[in-house]
Every structure is written in C-alpha cells, then in structure tokens.
C-alpha cells in the first residue's frame, strides 16, 4: 500500500516538475524547499563511512558531510539562513521511490550512478569511485568469482552489485544459489553465520563492514572489480534549477580543495562509532573525478565503457 501511495505521489510530483518555469519564479525542488522551509536528506543506516548511524543514532558520514555543504549552498541561494534539515532513513530498495515521491530532496548514501538509474533520477558529480568485489571467510578458501560455483551468495536487494553478480553467474553458468537480503548489515550477517559463502558489494563498503566486525581477521575481500561503481548524490530528474545548485556546491568543494579535508576525515582517520581507521587513500579514479567533476554513469553492462 505504501509503495502505491509513493507512486501516486511521484506521479503528482512528476506532473508538477514537468510544468514549465514561469519567468524567474522558483520551480521544482527549490520551490518546495522555500514553501516548506525544510530540506529533506535521505541517508542510510549501514553504509560506512558514507552514510550511517553513530552511537546516538545520528546520521553521519562522508556523503552526509557533502550533503550538508549542499544545504549551505541552498541556504545562500534561497536566502533562507534558518532552513531546517530533516534526515529520512532510506534503504537500497526504497531510495528511488522515496526520492521520486518527494519525501527526500537529495539522497546522500552510497548510490551508484548508472545509465539505467538516470532514466529515473539525476545525479550530482561523482564523489567516490569503487567497484564490486566479494567478502568471504578466510577459512572458505574462496579466491575469486569462479570459486563460487554451486555456493550460496547473499546480495542486498536493489543494488548494482546484485545485477553484476547475477549477470556473471548467467554468463559463466556457475549455478550460484542466491539469497536476497534487505540491507548490507543483514547480508554481512549471512556470511558471518555461514548462511552464505560470499557477499558481493562495493569494495569500500566491504572494508567498512569488515572493520566493524567482531573478528575482522576472519574475513577477506577478494576478486577483481566485477563492475565499476561511481557514487553520486541522487536527486529528482528534470529539475535544472536545483541540479545547478547541487552541482555548483559539489564542484566548488572540489575546486577549493575542501573535499580533501572531508575525505581525510572519513577515510584516513578514526571514525565513529568504534574508532576504526579505514586507511583508504584517495584512488586515482576519484582524483580524476575531483579534477574534472562529471556525472557520467556506469553503463548497462556494469562497466564505465560498454
């Protein structure tokens, strides 16, 4: 029922958004923010260190910090210093319907910008570059994807990794038994409890999950990149005014070099809640994306170049 109502809302929102802007009047998301005085940010609960909850259940992370910069820009743009920010939790499965339904204005999580998704939503410039790998127990002896033959693999529903591993399974006829799960924490639990042999996910998230595990040394992340996953902040489509504000805010962050400070804070220092340091220096892919901001999505084949 909830799904249907979100859809209704999204239809309504789409018809509003597709109306031509009259003169200099605000339209779309900017108008919505002006009218309600609230900007709604979608966040995740276990996408360490992009968007997750700290021990006070407050959303924090690299993505959340960048989104707060966008909020500052919106405040300046709309001359609304008292603009309120509301955090709304979303999952891999709900993020797109909720965004389209208007209950969030931007999603700051760990969302891959794909050509497929661009048919539904729009993206800010890439803010992280990663790709699919698998996490397995060291004792399992699994070294790569071909070792998964006939084994159980858990995936988080609605992710690009799900598509990547299923496509690989079809192509190589591995006969993998798939186990769907709701979020990354639950998927990782399936590997921890031996219910599944492997969990394919963006490698950086796997490092985050591994670092947070009770016994990190038990796990190992293996495989070549099965897909490319450029992360970006997600917003509604066909809203050029809002997109410009968001894109400008992110680009300014890149140009000023402030991005390095935020990056170091989340990837090369101790992060809450357990004080782990991911020690994950900025990749060449991300350095490139920072130098020339772009929102190129990953192709239908799961790679940047199909």
């Amino acid at each position, binding site marked *: 029922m909830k799904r249907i109502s979100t859809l209704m809302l999204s239809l309504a929102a789409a018809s509003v958004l597709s109306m031509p802007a009259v003169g200099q009047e605000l339209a779309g998301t900017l108008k919505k923010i002006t009218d309600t005085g609230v900007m709604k940010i979608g966040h995740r609960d276990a996408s360490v260190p992009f968007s997750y909850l700290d021990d006070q259940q407050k959303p924090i992370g690299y993505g959340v910090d960048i989104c707060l910069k966008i909020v500052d820009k919106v405040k300046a743009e709309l001359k609304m210093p008292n603009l309120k920010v509301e955090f709304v939790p979303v999952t891999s499965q709900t993020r797109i*319907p909720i965004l389209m339904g208007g209950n969030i204005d931007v999603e700051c999580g760990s969302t891959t910008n794909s050509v497929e998704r661009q048919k539904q939503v729009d993206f800010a410039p890439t803010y992280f570059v990663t790709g699919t790998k698998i996490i397995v127990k060291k004792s399992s002896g699994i070294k790569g994807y071909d070792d998964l033959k006939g084994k159980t693999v858990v995936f988080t*529903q609605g992710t690009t990794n799900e*598509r990547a591993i299923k496509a690989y399974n079809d192509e190589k006829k591995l006969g993998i038994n798939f186990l769907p799960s709701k979020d990354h924490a639950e998927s990782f639990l399936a590997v921890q409890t*031996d219910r599944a042999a492997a969990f394919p996910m963006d490698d950086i998230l796997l490092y985050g999950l591994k670092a947070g595990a009770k016994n990190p040394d038990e796990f190992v992340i293996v495989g070549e990149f099965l897909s490319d996953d450029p992360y970006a902040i997600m917003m509604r489509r066909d809203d050029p005014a809002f997109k410009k504000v968001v894109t400008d805010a992110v680009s300014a962050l890149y140009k000023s070099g402030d991005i390095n400070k935020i990056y170091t804070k989340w990837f090369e220092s101790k992060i809450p809640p357990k004080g782990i340091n991911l020690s994950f220096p900025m990749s060449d892919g991300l350095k490139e994306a920072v130098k020339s901001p772009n929102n190129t999505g990953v192709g239908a084949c799961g790679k940047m170049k199909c």
Partner: protein
Amino acid sequence: MDFSFLSQPAFSGGGTYLDWVITGIKWTVLVSLCAWVIAFSVGSVLGVMRTTKVWWLNGPATAYVELFRNIPLLVHMFIWYFVMPEMVPKVLGAWMKQGMPMPEFWSAVFALGFYTASRVAEQVRSGIQSIPRGQTNAALATGLTMPQVYRHLLLPMGYRIVIPPLTSEFLTIFKNSSVALTIGVLELTAQARTISEYTFRTFEIFTLATVVYVLITMAVVVVMQLVERRVRVPGYIGTGR
C-alpha cells in the same frame, strides 16, 4: 497501465518477467499449503488437548497457544531462520544453514505453520466447546467412553461448526506467507518488489500481485464452501442456504 514489460526478457535467469511472477506464485502456494498442513494437524491436536479435563494435556496445549499466538509472525520467522541454527548443536546448525536444501523455505513453513497452529487450536477448541454439554452427557449415558464421545460426537460436529472461521484462517495463511520475504523466500510479494526495482513498473506489478492474491483466496473460498456443503448435517448446521 502498460503490462508489456511482463513479456520482456528478465534481467537474469533466461526467462521473462512473467516467469518471475509465476515462480513467485509457486512459492506463495507451496509455503502456504505446507504451512497449512502443519497448522491444521498440530492445531487440531492442540485444540482437542485444550478441551480435555486432563491437566497434563491441556496445560502444555494452553502454554503453546499463549506463547505462539502472542509473538509477532515476523519474529517467528527470524527465530526459525536466524536463531534456531545457532541454538542446536554445531554440526546440525551448520547443516541447517548450508546442507539442508532451501533453508529459507523450510524456516518459513515452520514459522508460519506453528504460528497458525495456535490460532487453529483456538478455533477447534471453540467448536468443540460450543456443542451443548447435554449431548456429551447423553453420549456417555449410552455407554460410550470419553474417547468414543470425541470420535463420534465432539470432533465430527465441532469441525463442522468451525469451517467458516477455519476458512478465514486458511485465507490468512496465504496472505501471511508474504512475510516470508523477510528471510529471503522469493514468493509473490518479493518477486513483485524485485520486478518493480528492475523495471520501475511499480504500479502495474503490484496491481498484478493484488489480483493474483485475490484469485488465490477466492479459489480457497470456493473449495471451502464445497467442503462445507459436502459435509453438512441436514437439520443441524450449514443448512440455512
């Protein structure tokens, strides 16, 4: 509404999206029917146990009913799926997780079956207890023993009385089977969700799922009405129509 996406080749597995829907229907029906077998048989035994005057029969049955019907179905699912394998000996637990075929299916069947059993037990009990005490006394007076009274009077009449509420229970099990998606059973609702993610045809696919659920439950209603008509006792109950 445009349903043409159903005939398009699905993202993986080689079939079309319609094939995904059909697999979903298959699992919904399988989970529900298997769970109903458990619910009906266990529920019947427990229901009868609750009507006896023997403390070591009705005590445990009462405890079962109160425990199982007072825990949310979702929690039942999680307990069977996540907790059980960790509580049993390690070898058995490992087998439950990896050796056993379709662990999520069987967890769902047991969770749904044993939960619904507590509800069926109450229906059966109410059926038996709604038969006037005079009839039991009369039967005993003719020389029947208590087990014979159950066999020839209380059970045949009691079950007939509770056919309508049991029909509801049978319908509910089909609808409750959708909770199995939380432990990874790809039944109808889960397939609908997956298809909506792949095709963004949320409205169409959930409309289709709704229609399928209604058709399944209508079929159950028809079957149960046939049963009711078939077994009715002329002059007693079920003759009003």
